[in-house]
């Protein structure tokens, strides 16, 4: 008999739900088998923490006296430009945005010590930030200049809204060239000097629900230390990626767009990121509970690092030139061992995603559910699956004749 989410929620409210982390589930299934594990476990918690581009926050800062219309004007937060083009006092700050005077890669590699992600970290930690704006002035919004301290507790809304997070799988980045390169996957030493990967592997949310059976639009999640929701499939969502027998994609597969109240979040799980020679970003902590509705979900959540394969991609040529070539596939178990072998060469591996913080998130979410503080949700709508035919398309360039 399959379980329902309602039944699981009744057990959570009664303090009787059995909750384990995805790592614990892997062990449990290995020891007792899928059937027994399904009977015993109600919920499996997942977690991931790493740089997630396509993140940002929107704010409604409230109306000044006299009023100002930021839309059509300019606005910076701690010197980092925010997008104003939606209304009078609604602004959006992207994690990758840089101050106008940042030298970028003028002296390569640039440091990118401060960008949108760092502003979000400071803002969520309760620090005052500087808002500076200029506008053109209208009859109803006459004010043209504004410079003020801004604090998260004083704004109407502060919302984290990330259009692509929690990638289901990701590339392992290497460098075949004879000089170091500086990428969003970190510094890559020449001639296969290191291999960097970025996934929580067997702990990662979408690895444990590979067909998006339970994670869908409206799913309540752990986001940045607070509570958030899945808003939509993330951009570049690619359910048609090739999959293993366990349905785990062997390329970057599904993604999530997530949203949540920034006022309830914590800088421990939202950290500004500087990638040398690349730019700024935000590390985001995401944790998603997976209801064990039936034996198939017990099987899916028993996925281990060994079962998940990632493609090795050369970031000196194949990636920038958008060539599909890969150097092979490697499991997360091999990656986590610290050394992988390509063409008989031993290559040290580095992780960009933090396993220890992913574990912390999965444990924290487990505690919240055990204490009855966090209930599970039925998706309002399923995310597009492999039957949707949706793929990740390249840009269709059509030159414009001048």
């Amino acid at each position, binding site marked *: 008999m399959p379980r329902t989410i309602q039944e699981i929620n009744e057990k959570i409210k009664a303090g009787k739900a059995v909750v384990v982390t995805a790592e614990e589930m892997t062990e449990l299934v290995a020891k007792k088998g899928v059937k027994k594990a399904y009977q015993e476990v109600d919920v499996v918690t997942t977690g991931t*923490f*790493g*740089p997630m581009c396509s993140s940002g926050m929107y704010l409604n800062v409230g109306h000044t006296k006299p009023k100002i219309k930021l839309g059509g004007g300019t606005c910076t937060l701690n010197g980092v430009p925010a997008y104003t083009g939606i209304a009078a006092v609604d602004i959006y700050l992207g994690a990758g945005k840089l101050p106008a005077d940042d030298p970028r890669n003028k002296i390569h*590699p640039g*440091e990118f*010590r401060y960008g949108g992600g760092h502003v979000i970290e400071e803002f969520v930690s309760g620090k005052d930030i500087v808002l500076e704006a200029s506008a053109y002035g209208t009859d109803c919004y006459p004010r043209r200049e504004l410079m003020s301290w801004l604090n998260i507790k004083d704004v109407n809304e502060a919302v984290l809204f990330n259009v692509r997070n929690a990638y289901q799988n990701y590339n392992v980045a290497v460098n075949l060239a004879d000089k170091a390169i500086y990428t969003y996957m*970190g*510094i890559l*030493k020449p001639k296969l000097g*290191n*291999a*960097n990967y970025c996934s929580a592997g067997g702990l990662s949310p979408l690895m444990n629900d590979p067909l998006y059976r339970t994670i869908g639009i409206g799913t309540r999640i752990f986001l940045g230390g607070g509570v958030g929701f899945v808003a939509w499939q993330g951009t570049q969502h690619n359910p048609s990626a090739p999959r293993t027998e366990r349905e785990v994609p062997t390329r970057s597969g599904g993604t999530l767009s997530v949203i949540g109240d920034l006022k309830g979040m914590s800088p421990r799980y939202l*950290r*500004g*990121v*500087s*990638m*040398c020679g690349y730019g700024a*970003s935000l*590390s985001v902590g995401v944790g998603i509970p997976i209801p064990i509705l039936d034996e198939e979900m017990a099987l899916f959540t028993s996925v281990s690092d060994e079962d998940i394969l990632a493609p090795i991609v050369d970031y000196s040529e194949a990636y920038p030139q958008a060539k599909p070539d890969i150097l092979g596939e490697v499991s997360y178990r091999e990656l986590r061992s*610290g050394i992988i072998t390509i063409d008989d060469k031993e*290559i*040290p*591996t*580095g*992780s*960009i*995603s*933090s*396993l*220890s*913080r992913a*574990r912390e998130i999965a444990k924290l979410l487990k505690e919240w559910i055990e204490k009855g503080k966090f209930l599970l949700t039925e998706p309002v709508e399923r995310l597009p699956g492999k039957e949707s035919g949706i793929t990740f398309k390249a840009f269709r360039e059509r030159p414009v004749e001048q």
Partner: protein
Amino acid sequence: MISRRVVLYFPSELIDQPIISNTVKRYNLEFNILKASIAPPEGGLLVLELQGGKKDVGEALAYLKELNIRIENLSRDITRREDACVHCGVCVAICPSDALVLNTTNGEVDFLPEKCVACELCVKACPYAAMEVRL
């Protein structure tokens, strides 16, 4: 045999003299240059790993001090801000001296200052600015 990693600050009047060459010959030492920069008029900076007999290394450092070269131990020079580190491990594959290693029992990154050669690669590579240079 002992091994010491030191930072030597040369006054500008000494930078044209073969001081290191003389020192290693006189005290029978082996050395490995980890970093060197000469910027007159301020003088020069040399980060060295010295290997030799315990007495010889001690006497060599005393000799350098007499020449008005300021000496500091290297281990203090790169520090980790513990509150900033998220233990991702991107520094582990970059570190050439195994001073940053993955602790397989807890999944965290251990920093072993005694192994650090202060190449500063981790300072550049850390996305969270957790590795700091203190000179």
